């Protein structure tokens, strides 16, 4: 009868996943310990931890609950970052308070609770609702907006984790934090040298983050913050970021630059930090570690104590933090200077939508108008043009200027190669406008009839037919009152 271990091997199968040799940094690869006895001694001890800290250019911080490695880097104002300087970035972040407030109004920085929307991977386990329900705006009055707090308080957070799935078994092994001053961007990274030190890491991060103001992340509302909160909950330690305002730059960035991502030639509508830094500042990373490889590099470090494969991971994390600052700075600049600063029609449209969301309708309208002009000049994208006109019309209606709104609808209805759905919407809006506002029943009927020609379906068709009947009834009444003699219209 086979031994228990042999039977278990048959069931478990597989061997330790190893990094391919070419991914290893220069120098001979250290053999990986597979035997339990060897592995026991391979746990990172004091000297090994000091060596790792040295390799990574950091230091060991010993605390009561364990030890961690911290790595500090400073990016000086005079340093270049692609086409811009670090100084440009920090000055923008520190100066444009009004723009920050506007951004905050567009996406209220509700502080994160336990896994608000769940981690991305959690959708595998917990089927998610349609997107719109998750991204619904939920202004939360309990938490002050950033402008009501210390104005320059702002720090950036980015985690590297042992997986994307979320849940109790996914850990943040690297917590990257950055803060800005006139001198530049200062990054502090907290590295977990072994799982048993997690409490110490969480405590250090909590101390560092205290009183620093609002958190800025990229997709942090659904990933980084719920994940690190889970770690605190796991250790049953209060979450130090509870109630701290949180600006997730993913959403503004999507508004402003997703469309441009597609025009970038990359083919897909990517809105990753890598795409954005290339787009906004011409930054090209060299030898960047691909995201999917990051967990296995950490697992290898945990197994053999060799920190060299982690160097690239830490560098990746630092660049992400600087790029996050860049993205925010660029967004604030746009918001501050208005549509004139937009480099193309899409950025302008995105800016208009951002203003729209923040409720600054005047700025929004101006930006929509400018976006429509720019789009019409190029004339290549009826979808975007139609979308801009539609939003312009709604924006004007919300400011109570229905006649100007109707002008936008009319422009949309007349737009060459206008998408059918948008054209139907325009006709419907025009029919309503002429029936109820302009009291021009003939025009209302014309729009209603043309809407039916466009073959709407379902509820929209029923409504259109109903509307047409009602308009004709009204017209009949008006005529019978006027002349008792129906006359045929052209």
């Amino acid at each position: 009868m086979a031994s228990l271990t042999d039977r278990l091997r048959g069931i478990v199968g597989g061997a330790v996943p190893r990094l391919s040799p070419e991914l290893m940094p220069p120098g001979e690869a250290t053999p990986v310990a597979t035997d339990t006895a060897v592995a026991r001694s391979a746990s990172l001890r004091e000297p090994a931890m000091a060596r790792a800290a040295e390799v990574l250019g950091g230091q060991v911080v010993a605390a009561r609950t364990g030890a961690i490695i911290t790595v500090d880097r400073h990016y000086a104002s005079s340093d270049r970052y692609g086409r811009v300087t670090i100084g440009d970035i920090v000055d923008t972040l520190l100066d444009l308070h009004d723009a920050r407030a506007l951004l905050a109004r567009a996406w209220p920085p509700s502080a994160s609770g336990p896994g608000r929307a769940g981690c991305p991977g959690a959708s595998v386990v917990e089927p998610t609702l349609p997107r719109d329900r998750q991204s619904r705006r939920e202004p939360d009055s309990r938490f002050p907006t950033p402008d009501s707090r210390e104005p320059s308080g702002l720090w950036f957070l980015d985690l590297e984790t042992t997986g994307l799935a979320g849940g109790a078994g996914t850990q943040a092994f690297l917590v990257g934090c950055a803060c800005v001053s006139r001198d530049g961007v200062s990054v502090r990274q907290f590295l977990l040298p072994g799982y048993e030190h997690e409490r110490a890491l969480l405590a250090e991060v909590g101390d560092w983050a205290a009183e620093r103001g609002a958190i800025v992340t990229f997709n942090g509302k659904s990933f980084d913050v719920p994940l690190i909160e889970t770690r605190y909950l796991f250790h049953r330690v209060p979450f130090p970021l509870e109630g701290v305002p949180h600006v997730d730059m993913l959403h503004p960035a999507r508004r402003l630059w997703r469309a441009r991502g597609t025009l970038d030639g990359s083919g897909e509508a990517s809105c990753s930090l890598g795409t954005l830094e290339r787009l906004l500042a011409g930054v090209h990373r060299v030898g960047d570690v691909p995201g999917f490889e990051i967990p296995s590099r950490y697992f290898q470090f945990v197994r053999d104590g060799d920190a060299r494969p982690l160097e690239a991971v830490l560098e990746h994390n630092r660049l992400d933090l600087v790029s996050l600052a860049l993205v925010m700075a660029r967004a604030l600049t746009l918001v501050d200077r208005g549509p004139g600063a937009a480099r193309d029609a899409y950025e302008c449209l995105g800016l208009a939508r951002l203003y729209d969301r923040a409720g600054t309708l005047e700025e929004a309208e101006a930006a929509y108008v400018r976006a429509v002009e720019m789009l019409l000049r190029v004339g290549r994208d009826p979808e975007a043009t139609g979308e801009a006109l539609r939003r312009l019309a709604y924006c004007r209606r919300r400011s109570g200027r229905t006649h100007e709104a109707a002008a936008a609808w009319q422009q949309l209805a007349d737009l060459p190669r206008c998408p059918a759905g948008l054209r139907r919407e325009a006709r419907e809006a025009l029919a309503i406008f002429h029936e109820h506002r302009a009291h021009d029943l003939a025009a209302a009927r014309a729009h209603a009839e043309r809407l039916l020609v466009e073959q709407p379906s379902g509820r929209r068709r029923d409504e259109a037919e109903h509307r047409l009947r009602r308009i004709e009834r009204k017209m009949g009444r008006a005529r019978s009152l006027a002349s008792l003699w129906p006359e045929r219209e052209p």
Partner: protein
Amino acid sequence: MAAQSSAQVSALRTQEKKEVALQGALQVLAPGPAADRPDTPDGVVTAVRRLPATPASFAPFPEGLDPRLLKALAARGATELYTHQAAAFAHIAAGRNIVVTTPTASGKTLCYNLPVLDAVLKNPATRALYLFPTKALAQDQMAELHEIAGTISDEGGDEIGVHTYDGDTPQDARRTIRTRAHVVLSNPDMLHSGILPHHPKWAKLFENLRFVVIDELHAYRGVFGSHLANVLRRLRRVCRHYGSDPQFICSSATIANPAELAERLAERPFALVEKSGAPRGEKFFVFVNPPVVNRELGIRRSYLNESRRVAGEFLRRNLQVILFAQSRLATEILTTYLKDDFEDVPGMPEKIRGYRGGYLPLRRREIEKGLREGQVRGVVSTNALELGIDIGALDVSIMAGYPGTIAATWQRAGRAGRRAARSAAVMVASSAPIDQFVVRHPSYFFDASPEHALVNPDNLNILVNHVKCAAFELPFTAVEEYGRVNVQEVLGVLQEAGLVHLSGADPDDETSGQWHWTSESYPADAVSLRSVSSDNFVVVDQTGEPKVIAETDFTSALSMLHPKAIYIVEGRLFQVEKLDFEGRKAYVRSVDCDYYTTAIDYTKVTILDTFARDAAAVAHHGEVHVVSRVVGFKKIKFHTNENVGSGELDLPEHQMHTTSYWLEVPGPVLAALPYAVDDRRDGIRGLAYAMKNVAQLLLMCDQRDVGLSVNAGDEVVAGPAVAPGQDAPRIFLYDAYPGGIGFSAPLYGMHDELLARTRVLIEGCECENGCPTCVGPVGETGPLAKTVALRLLQHVIGDAGAEAPALRAADGPMLGGAGAPSLESGTERRDSTPGDTPDDVPF
């Protein structure tokens, strides 16, 4: 007031009418006195038993019950408790775990709702987790709990949060549920993959968890139960982390070992509450054996046709009927038949519905509602409706074929009958050996204990998967124990595969350190509690706009959805045009044809390791490798059951390692038989057929739990000088789950009894050359199968075994002993269709 009394009067009148109709139908089916007739094993109706009505026995509400709860119960008309509810409450108050086994509709749910609501009212921090085997049952329960909770808050009590948490729970409701719900109703699968792995988010629940309620405990046997036991081990680990130690409250249908099962699942001591204080209406239980239609060949009328006739008698009198079939295929066939009989106008509301695993949830909810509201007059179902899904109380329960276990039979019979009203249950036997035994020995069923439910939580395949999940949830310490295996050794092997890592260990201290999960994967996703593989196949109808019409689990897919298979959904026929095995999809198109298909499979077993053998080297127990493959299919004509064609298939094979009992026929024994090679082989096959059926009765297990494979030793029989043990003919009875689930070891222990009873079965059968009741139908096993099988047994047993005791049937001859030989007209496909499972627990 007047309106109410007139409603009462009309209800009474309906009741009277129903009773008259029921009596009428019973008179047609079983003429003669309605009650307490002597059994007539040779007749068509072999038994009519009257189960008398039982009055209620009450107990006062326990002292100290929260006054708000008392008030709410009083507002709902409850002024006292049934005795079993009071007993349950007393045990819980004393801190014991309990398992309640009272019949359907006995107010079982109050047994757990009472202590839970009382505790929540007294301390609002209290939390309870309810587990149901299906989402539908959780929904049913929530409706009931919501009513009580609503009454409590109406009466000025506090709000009690009651929520279901499953795959359908909206994302934005989840956070609230995690922190606010006092009672969370979920299922083991969700606990396994959605709650435990995210326990930090559930900290509030786990810190305050006082009760874990497990309803329908009997559903957790075999593989599913073994998984649940491991999920509960993980639950207890997480509770320890948060400092809680919940009490378990379980409810179960009648099985032989409810407390033992609960103890195996929860690994805690349990007290049993089994004496019901609830009233019960009178019930008639009728056993029907389809009549012999061809006396010379001993062919019986098809049990499906007979079930159709029986159901017709009740449906015609406008009684509401549930008809249980043994397989998904039989369900569809019977649905087709009854629709033919009772649905005349297309487009009218459907009076007859089918119901089985694989139907989409929306369709199921619609059928359940139709049953409760009475538009649906008859439902044909697999065991999917055996559990307590709320379909109201029907008038009659009919079983087409013996459900395989005593417990399942009572459970199905219980779907008919209200507390005060008269109801009926009818079992129509097929010609399978077990059916024939039970139908001719009614006291085996009526007077014997029901089956044991077995689980094997330490099955290595299952356990290893859950150790992974557990390590993901909380690191294992270097001294932690888990189950009955050495978990440290398991973790060592997981470390070799890079899945865990021992960190913080002092090299000089073996007890230091913790095993941490070191993989990006989310291990719970890779483990399905319900079947071997978590994959399922969807069935896409391409007749019009492509749409998904059903789904099926991985194991059934190959036999139900192979190319050219006829796939039936509620009587509508579809032909499979393409099976996309990689994409897990089957494309079907609606067809109009007069046949259905059954798959033919081929199984080969190889011995890997022998754990034990008896002195004569006949009986063995060990580890085997099983390869099975669907190799072809037959086309069977509806109604006549003629075989009208066949086809070959080339499909991927299914492999597993499992444990097995096997019987090896010694070379000299075989050589001594004065028969031709083919006849010897037939004899071995016939013996195997009989042994499998006896094994099933001895183990009291489901026919799916044990697989049969025969290696007839074709190469060996020709040469008598072959060394013993080398490719000798063998009969394998193996655990039909990777790693084994605990049936083969007891079988090895019962080897002598198994052979003795098999011998009595074959000897006692009055057929001449074999029939489905002993060694299998002549057409399939050959003319000398019976004779050779008996000679084989004589050699293997010697003469000592001839006096084997009868199988619990104190009043009659042995299994298959008396009665006419019965060969049915070819309907018995259920055992030959490997993947056509009697059904899953619907999910």
